[in-house]
């Protein structure tokens, strides 16, 4: 494990030691997994093993929780997370075509990460920007009034960043 990862693991252990003091500490599992994902970007197996040990919760149970919630990533994610809004307004305005263009450009399916680890493609349900539909969100920024050409240009801009 790299030094950086060791540091993150230490932070996670400290966080677990802190919640372990509280009443019903086992109910902090989701909070601990959030912390872990915040630190590592996803939930590697070694991290879930450490959580099992720290909270004294069987790994099978942790696996059940981690796979139940879409929020948790079980694979490493890319530097940029591209979320395509598939809400009603965007869908009507051609979100499908935007998504298809992204799949072609990035050569991944929804939920996957590009080989160069730059982009992870996701679907979203209504980003609350229906006025400029169809929209996508890259990291925390919204891009609106898109079509299949415009979206590719945005991706290319991010590649150059």
């Amino acid at each position: 494990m790299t030094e950086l990862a060791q540091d993150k693991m230490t932070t996670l252990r400290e966080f677990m030691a802190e919640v372990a003091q509280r009443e019903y500490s086992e109910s902090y599992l989701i909070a601990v997994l959030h912390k872990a994902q915040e630190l590592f970007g996803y939930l590697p197996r070694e991290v879930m093993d450490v959580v099992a040990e720290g909270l004294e919760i069987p790994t099978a149970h942790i696996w059940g929780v981690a796979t139940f919630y879409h929020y948790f990533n079980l694979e490493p994610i890319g530097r940029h997370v591209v979320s395509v809004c598939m809400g009603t307004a965007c869908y009507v305005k051609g979100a499908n075509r935007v998504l298809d263009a992204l799949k072609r450009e990035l050569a991944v399916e929804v939920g996957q990460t590009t080989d160069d680890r730059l982009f992870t493609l996701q679907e979203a349900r209504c980003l609350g920007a229906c006025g400029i539909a169809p929209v996508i969100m890259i990291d925390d920024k919204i891009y609106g009034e898109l079509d299949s050409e415009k979206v590719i240009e945005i991706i290319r801009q991010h590649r150059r960043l």
Partner: protein
Amino acid sequence: MKNMITIFINDKEYKVEPDQTIMKAADKLGFKIPRLCYHPKLSIEGACRVCVVEVEGHRNFVASCAFPISDGMRIKTNTHELRRARRDIVELILDNHPLDCHTCERDSNCELQRLAASMGIRARHFAGDRKRYEEDLSSDAVIRNPEKCILCGRCVRLCSEIQQVHNLTQSHRGFSTVVTPAYNAPMAESVCTACGQCINVCPTAAFLEKNYTQELFSNLNDPTMIKVAQFAPSVRAAIGEAFGLPVGTNMEGQLVASLRLLGFDYVFDTQFAADLTIMEEASEFLERVKGNGKLPMITSCSSAWMKCLEQFYPDLIDNVSTCKSPMSMQGAMTKTYFAQKLGIDPSKICSAAAMCCTAKKYEAARPELMFDGMKGVDIVVTTREIAWMIKSAGLDFVNIKPEQPDNPLGLSSGAGAIFGTTGGVMEAAIRTAYDLYTGQTLIDIEIEAVRGLKGIKEGSLTMDGKEIRVAVAHGLGNACKLLDVVRKDPDRYHFIEIMGCPGGCVGGGGQPYPLTNTVPLDDAALTKRAKALYDLDRGKTIRRSHDNPGVQKLYKEFLEHPLSEVSHKYLHTHYQAKLPVGIIPKEAKKIEVKP
């Protein structure tokens, strides 16, 4: 008595005890509300909704397994709408289930099939997408087929609540929900102890033992091989159930006769090796009492318990007896002592075992149990598998004339018979240890303190003024509780018996599926099977392992004496810490263990 309350079921008034669910109250009044995910020994899941009933004042039907009764409650269990709702629920389950009943191993033994029949489902109305998964065939003992799974969650609850192994979980969600070990690990790499209780509680065929019947049949048809069988004590106490006989019918003689007709050249009895195990184990215990080795000593017969030990209690490995299980001892003696007697090459022996256990399949494959480059037991089949083989061979098992096992490895004492039930190994060991230690004969050999289905049993006896405190646990969950006590208070007991399955081997993961009117893990059924073994013991003239003339002869001709060098080579082994995928955290990980 508590204050009784009034409920109405189908407009009839009943006085019942408060603080119970509708289902429990209805059960006692003679209503059997259809059910699927419910199991009386497990926590309430409320997953399947098959047990819905109508409660006046409630907008929706409620799950009777989870809904508490209250005073004045008016319940309907059998309206037209309820029947239709239940039927739809089961139809929806069937829609996501393979349509292969006639080629399924659980055909005619399947709860889902029975339920569908009782709902009167004779056509499919909800044809749609169905889940598709690969079978997990990685384990030597327990295979997993998620396509057959209906997500009742019984196996998950059993594995966590009763066995405390925590191997299984429902992972992912919605249509993608699937029961898996942690990290989707193959069963062989998971913390599965191979106890097979998931098979027993599964209403369908989502878990099964790995089937070795075809391999055994082809060996039986090989004229160049000498085919040798052994069968565990509790196989004889349960196999009758697979042929419609009452629970607890002893079918020892019929089983011996059937094994011969199946093509075995020699039919030995694992009870012989149970006596042999007691000779070694009691001697080992007395050595430890004298100060040579750690106390408490813990028994090592149960293969699922051995895996549990290596994973979760590696710090107690030195406390566990080095004796192999009776099955492995019997296998070792078959391929050494017996082969020599016969003057044959042991590699020409096919050594097969009919066991009540699925974990014995895993045990037979363990490399540390090998000797002279050989496995003691080549093929292990469960009670269910051997029952099927007998049916498949067209034998009239119920009416066949009973026969005796062969010598020299077939004679057994009553102590060997009771090995198959919780407390039995302890009782057998005490009968011999007392006599060996004191030089006197223990008169009262029926030791009630270690009998019965209490989770953890304790007892004590005095040998020449020395107090010996013993404890017995059955089911890995009870074992874990007991061992947690031992970790904190190592001097509390001298001798501990652990069996991995609830009820001991009589409740093994390979025993016949429950009859239509019982549930798996039913205490009454386990008690009846145990009684068959206790009756067998009582009916024998020889009831102490050291009095078994066959065992005495074996020592005279081959092993010399208990714990001799020869014994150590063939009858003893050692265990190693194992930390596979999905370990439960417990204390195990905090203890320094060499990989």
